[in-house]
Protein backbone atom coordinates (compact mmCIF):
# COMPACT_ATOMS: atom_id res chain seq x y z
CA UNK A 1 0.00 0.00 0.00
CA UNK A 2 2.91 2.34 0.69
CA UNK A 3 3.68 2.39 -3.05
CA UNK A 4 0.55 4.56 -3.37
CA UNK A 5 2.51 7.37 -1.70
CA UNK A 6 5.01 9.83 -3.18
CA UNK A 7 8.39 10.58 -1.62
CA UNK A 8 6.89 13.87 -0.41
CA UNK A 9 3.94 12.11 1.26
CA UNK A 10 6.13 9.51 3.00
CA UNK A 11 8.53 12.21 4.15
CA UNK A 12 5.72 14.28 5.64
CA UNK A 13 4.46 11.22 7.56
CA UNK A 14 1.35 10.32 5.56
CA UNK A 15 0.44 6.61 5.65
CA UNK A 16 -2.16 4.34 4.11
CA UNK A 17 -4.04 2.64 6.97
CA UNK A 18 -6.69 0.68 5.11
CA UNK A 19 -9.72 1.14 2.95
CA UNK A 20 -13.04 2.85 3.38
CA UNK A 21 -15.90 2.67 0.87
CA UNK A 22 -13.52 1.16 -1.67
CA UNK A 23 -10.85 3.86 -1.53
CA UNK A 24 -7.58 4.02 0.43
CA UNK A 25 -7.87 5.65 3.85
CA UNK A 26 -4.92 7.90 4.63
CA UNK A 27 -3.72 9.24 7.96
CA UNK A 28 -1.16 11.65 9.32
CA UNK A 29 -0.23 12.40 12.92
CA UNK A 30 0.19 15.93 14.19
CA UNK A 31 3.82 17.04 14.60
CA UNK A 32 5.96 20.14 14.21
CA UNK A 33 6.43 19.16 10.54
CA UNK A 34 2.76 19.89 9.75
CA UNK A 35 2.22 22.77 12.19
CA UNK A 36 1.25 26.23 10.94
CA UNK A 37 0.14 28.69 13.57
CA UNK A 38 0.91 27.17 16.98
CA UNK A 39 -1.31 24.19 17.78
CA UNK A 40 -2.91 23.87 14.33
CA UNK A 41 -2.20 22.21 11.00
CA UNK A 42 -0.64 24.38 8.27
CA UNK A 43 -3.11 24.71 5.39
CA UNK A 44 -0.44 23.43 3.02
CA UNK A 45 0.02 20.23 5.03
CA UNK A 46 -3.75 19.63 5.01
CA UNK A 47 -3.79 20.23 1.25
CA UNK A 48 -0.90 17.77 0.87
CA UNK A 49 -2.90 15.10 2.73
CA UNK A 50 -6.00 15.72 0.56
CA UNK A 51 -4.06 15.65 -2.67
CA UNK A 52 -2.17 12.51 -1.67
CA UNK A 53 -5.48 10.77 -0.87
CA UNK A 54 -6.74 11.77 -4.32
CA UNK A 55 -3.76 10.29 -6.14
CA UNK A 56 -3.79 7.16 -3.96
CA UNK A 57 -7.46 6.51 -4.81
CA UNK A 58 -6.86 7.03 -8.50
CA UNK A 59 -3.70 4.88 -8.62
CA UNK A 60 -5.53 2.14 -6.74
CA UNK A 61 -8.55 2.19 -9.10
CA UNK A 62 -6.40 2.28 -12.23
CA UNK A 63 -4.41 -0.69 -10.95
CA UNK A 64 -7.63 -2.66 -10.41
CA UNK A 65 -8.51 -1.88 -14.01
CA UNK A 66 -5.09 -3.03 -15.20
CA UNK A 67 -4.15 0.41 -16.48
CA UNK A 68 -0.54 1.52 -16.08
CA UNK A 69 -0.76 5.27 -16.18
CA UNK A 70 1.11 8.37 -15.11
CA UNK A 71 -0.96 10.98 -13.27
CA UNK A 72 -0.45 14.70 -13.75
CA UNK A 73 -2.21 17.46 -11.81
CA UNK A 74 -4.51 19.77 -13.78
CA UNK A 75 -5.93 21.67 -10.83
CA UNK A 76 -6.98 21.50 -7.22
CA UNK A 77 -9.31 23.67 -5.16
CA UNK A 78 -9.00 23.28 -1.42
CA UNK A 79 -11.70 24.52 0.94
CA UNK A 80 -10.85 24.87 4.59
CA UNK A 81 -13.82 24.20 6.85
CA UNK A 82 -12.40 24.24 10.36
CA UNK A 83 -8.99 24.43 12.03
CA UNK A 84 -6.93 21.24 12.00
CA UNK A 85 -6.46 20.50 15.71
CA UNK A 86 -3.26 18.91 17.04
CA UNK A 87 -4.43 15.32 16.53
CA UNK A 88 -4.47 12.65 13.81
CA UNK A 89 -6.12 13.64 10.51
CA UNK A 90 -7.77 11.26 8.02
CA UNK A 91 -8.54 11.64 4.33
CA UNK A 92 -10.35 9.69 1.65
CA UNK A 93 -11.15 10.46 -1.97
CA UNK A 94 -14.21 9.74 -4.06
CA UNK A 95 -13.68 9.34 -7.78
CA UNK A 96 -16.64 11.21 -9.21
CA UNK A 97 -15.78 10.46 -12.81
CA UNK A 98 -13.04 8.33 -14.31
CA UNK A 99 -12.51 8.92 -17.99
CA UNK A 100 -9.93 7.80 -20.49
CA UNK A 101 -7.86 10.97 -20.26
CA UNK A 102 -8.86 12.61 -17.00
CA UNK A 103 -10.54 12.03 -13.66
CA UNK A 104 -12.60 14.27 -11.36
CA UNK A 105 -12.24 13.67 -7.64
CA UNK A 106 -13.65 14.99 -4.39
CA UNK A 107 -11.51 14.46 -1.30
CA UNK A 108 -12.51 14.91 2.32
CA UNK A 109 -10.42 15.26 5.49
CA UNK A 110 -11.61 14.85 9.07
CA UNK A 111 -10.25 14.23 12.55
CA UNK A 112 -11.94 12.43 15.48
CA UNK A 113 -15.49 13.22 14.29
CA UNK A 114 -16.13 11.68 10.87
CA UNK A 115 -19.12 13.99 10.37
CA UNK A 116 -17.11 17.15 10.87
CA UNK A 117 -14.82 17.79 7.92
CA UNK A 118 -11.78 20.01 8.42
CA UNK A 119 -11.18 20.44 4.68
CA UNK A 120 -12.22 19.21 1.28
CA UNK A 121 -10.72 19.36 -2.18
CA UNK A 122 -11.91 19.13 -5.76
CA UNK A 123 -9.26 17.78 -8.12
CA UNK A 124 -8.91 17.29 -11.85
CA UNK A 125 -6.17 14.88 -12.83
CA UNK A 126 -4.74 14.11 -16.25
CA UNK A 127 -4.24 10.39 -16.95
CA UNK A 128 -1.48 9.45 -19.37
CA UNK A 129 -1.61 5.74 -20.19
CA UNK A 130 1.76 4.06 -20.70
CA UNK A 131 2.18 2.05 -23.87
Amino acid sequence: MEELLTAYARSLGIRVVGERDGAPLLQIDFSADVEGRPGAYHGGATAGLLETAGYAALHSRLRELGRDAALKPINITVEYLSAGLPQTSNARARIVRLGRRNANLVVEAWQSDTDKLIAMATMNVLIVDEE
Partner: protein
Amino acid sequence: MDRYPDKFDPQVMASAAFQRSHTGWLGLRYSDHGEDWVELELPWRADLLGDERRPVLASGPIISLVDMASGMAIWTAAGTFVQIATLDLRVDYNRPAREHASVFGRMRCYRRTRSAMFVNGIAHDGDIDDPIAHVAGVFMVIRPTKGDVRWKNS
Protein backbone atom coordinates in the same frame (compact mmCIF):
# COMPACT_ATOMS: atom_id res chain seq x y z
CA MET B 1 -0.30 39.00 19.42
CA ASP B 2 -2.46 41.14 17.18
CA ARG B 3 0.08 43.61 15.88
CA TYR B 4 3.79 43.98 15.46
CA PRO B 5 5.10 47.29 16.81
CA ASP B 6 6.44 48.36 13.41
CA LYS B 7 5.31 47.96 9.83
CA PHE B 8 5.17 44.28 8.85
CA ASP B 9 8.38 43.17 7.14
CA PRO B 10 8.16 39.80 5.31
CA GLN B 11 11.93 39.35 5.31
CA VAL B 12 12.13 39.74 9.09
CA MET B 13 9.19 37.39 9.59
CA ALA B 14 10.70 34.78 7.27
CA SER B 15 13.98 34.70 9.15
CA ALA B 16 12.11 33.85 12.37
CA ALA B 17 9.15 31.81 11.14
CA PHE B 18 10.97 29.50 8.71
CA GLN B 19 13.21 28.07 11.44
CA ARG B 20 10.54 25.61 12.55
CA SER B 21 7.08 24.11 11.92
CA HIS B 22 5.78 23.14 8.48
CA THR B 23 7.52 25.97 6.63
CA GLY B 24 10.79 25.10 8.39
CA TRP B 25 10.40 21.44 7.40
CA LEU B 26 9.89 22.52 3.78
CA GLY B 27 12.94 24.80 3.96
CA LEU B 28 11.09 27.85 2.62
CA ARG B 29 13.18 30.99 2.04
CA TYR B 30 12.36 34.65 1.56
CA SER B 31 12.96 35.74 -2.04
CA ASP B 32 11.49 39.19 -2.72
CA HIS B 33 8.55 41.47 -1.96
CA GLY B 34 6.78 44.68 -3.02
CA GLU B 35 3.97 46.81 -1.63
CA ASP B 36 1.30 44.14 -1.90
CA TRP B 37 3.18 40.99 -2.92
CA VAL B 38 5.65 38.48 -1.52
CA GLU B 39 7.76 35.87 -3.25
CA LEU B 40 9.11 32.83 -1.39
CA GLU B 41 11.42 30.07 -2.59
CA LEU B 42 10.94 26.34 -2.10
CA PRO B 43 14.39 24.80 -2.74
CA TRP B 44 14.48 21.48 -4.61
CA ARG B 45 14.92 18.46 -2.33
CA ALA B 46 14.87 14.74 -3.07
CA ASP B 47 12.35 13.91 -0.34
CA LEU B 48 9.79 16.39 -1.69
CA LEU B 49 9.32 14.66 -5.05
CA GLY B 50 5.92 13.79 -6.40
CA ASP B 51 6.79 11.46 -9.25
CA GLU B 52 8.95 8.35 -9.15
CA ARG B 53 9.87 8.79 -12.78
CA ARG B 54 11.06 12.42 -12.74
CA PRO B 55 13.00 14.56 -10.23
CA VAL B 56 10.40 17.35 -9.96
CA LEU B 57 8.86 18.79 -6.80
CA ALA B 58 5.45 17.41 -5.77
CA SER B 59 2.41 19.65 -6.00
CA GLY B 60 1.68 19.36 -2.25
CA PRO B 61 4.65 21.47 -1.13
CA ILE B 62 3.82 23.99 -3.87
CA ILE B 63 0.41 24.54 -2.22
CA SER B 64 2.16 25.11 1.13
CA LEU B 65 4.49 27.58 -0.61
CA VAL B 66 1.73 29.68 -2.19
CA ASP B 67 -0.42 29.48 0.95
CA MET B 68 2.44 30.93 3.01
CA ALA B 69 3.31 33.54 0.38
CA SER B 70 -0.38 34.54 0.31
CA GLY B 71 -0.52 35.11 4.05
CA MET B 72 2.66 37.16 3.96
CA ALA B 73 1.39 39.18 0.98
CA ILE B 74 -1.75 40.01 3.00
CA TRP B 75 0.28 41.19 6.00
CA THR B 76 2.61 43.14 3.72
CA ALA B 77 -0.32 44.84 1.94
CA ALA B 78 -2.03 45.55 5.29
CA GLY B 79 1.24 46.76 6.78
CA THR B 80 0.50 44.79 9.92
CA PHE B 81 -0.14 41.30 11.20
CA VAL B 82 -3.82 40.30 10.99
CA GLN B 83 -5.16 36.92 12.13
CA ILE B 84 -6.34 35.10 9.02
CA ALA B 85 -7.49 31.64 8.00
CA THR B 86 -7.40 30.20 4.49
CA LEU B 87 -10.97 29.87 3.18
CA ASP B 88 -10.09 28.41 -0.18
CA LEU B 89 -7.17 28.12 -2.52
CA ARG B 90 -7.21 27.08 -6.17
CA VAL B 91 -4.12 26.03 -8.09
CA ASP B 92 -4.09 25.49 -11.87
CA TYR B 93 -1.00 23.56 -12.88
CA ASN B 94 0.19 24.88 -16.26
CA ARG B 95 3.21 22.63 -16.63
CA PRO B 96 5.56 20.52 -14.47
CA ALA B 97 8.49 22.26 -12.76
CA ARG B 98 11.89 21.77 -14.36
CA GLU B 99 14.02 18.92 -13.00
CA HIS B 100 16.07 19.80 -9.90
CA ALA B 101 14.64 23.35 -9.94
CA SER B 102 13.57 25.47 -6.98
CA VAL B 103 9.96 26.64 -7.17
CA PHE B 104 9.01 30.23 -6.33
CA GLY B 105 5.58 31.29 -5.06
CA ARG B 106 4.77 34.90 -5.93
CA MET B 107 1.45 36.02 -4.45
CA ARG B 108 -0.30 39.38 -4.38
CA CYS B 109 -3.11 40.63 -2.14
CA TYR B 110 -5.24 42.53 -4.66
CA ARG B 111 -8.22 43.32 -2.43
CA ARG B 112 -8.67 43.77 1.30
CA THR B 113 -12.00 44.11 3.10
CA ARG B 114 -12.96 43.97 6.77
CA SER B 115 -13.80 40.27 6.56
CA ALA B 116 -11.90 38.85 3.62
CA MET B 117 -8.56 39.12 1.86
CA PHE B 118 -8.29 38.20 -1.83
CA VAL B 119 -5.05 36.95 -3.35
CA ASN B 120 -3.77 35.77 -6.70
CA GLY B 121 -0.41 34.90 -8.12
CA ILE B 122 1.81 32.31 -9.70
CA ALA B 123 4.32 29.60 -8.99
CA HIS B 124 7.35 29.65 -11.30
CA ASP B 125 10.78 28.10 -11.54
CA GLY B 126 12.88 31.11 -12.47
CA ASP B 127 10.94 32.94 -15.20
CA ILE B 128 7.85 34.83 -14.06
CA ASP B 129 6.65 34.97 -17.68
CA ASP B 130 6.52 31.18 -17.87
CA PRO B 131 4.62 30.12 -14.72
CA ILE B 132 4.22 26.51 -13.65
CA ALA B 133 0.92 27.35 -11.93
CA HIS B 134 -1.65 30.09 -11.48
CA VAL B 135 -3.16 30.50 -8.03
CA ALA B 136 -6.23 32.27 -6.57
CA GLY B 137 -7.43 32.29 -2.99
CA VAL B 138 -9.55 33.93 -0.30
CA PHE B 139 -8.60 34.30 3.35
CA MET B 140 -11.02 35.14 6.16
CA VAL B 141 -10.06 37.70 8.77
CA ILE B 142 -10.49 35.95 12.10
CA ARG B 143 -10.94 39.10 14.17
CA PRO B 144 -12.22 41.87 11.91
CA THR B 145 -11.47 45.46 12.80
CA LYS B 146 -14.19 48.09 12.88
CA GLY B 147 -15.00 50.28 9.89
CA ASP B 148 -14.62 49.89 6.16
CA VAL B 149 -17.29 47.25 5.70
CA ARG B 150 -17.70 46.22 2.10
CA TRP B 151 -18.26 42.54 2.36
CA LYS B 152 -21.08 41.34 4.63
CA ASN B 153 -21.22 37.61 4.70
CA SER B 154 -19.54 36.80 7.98
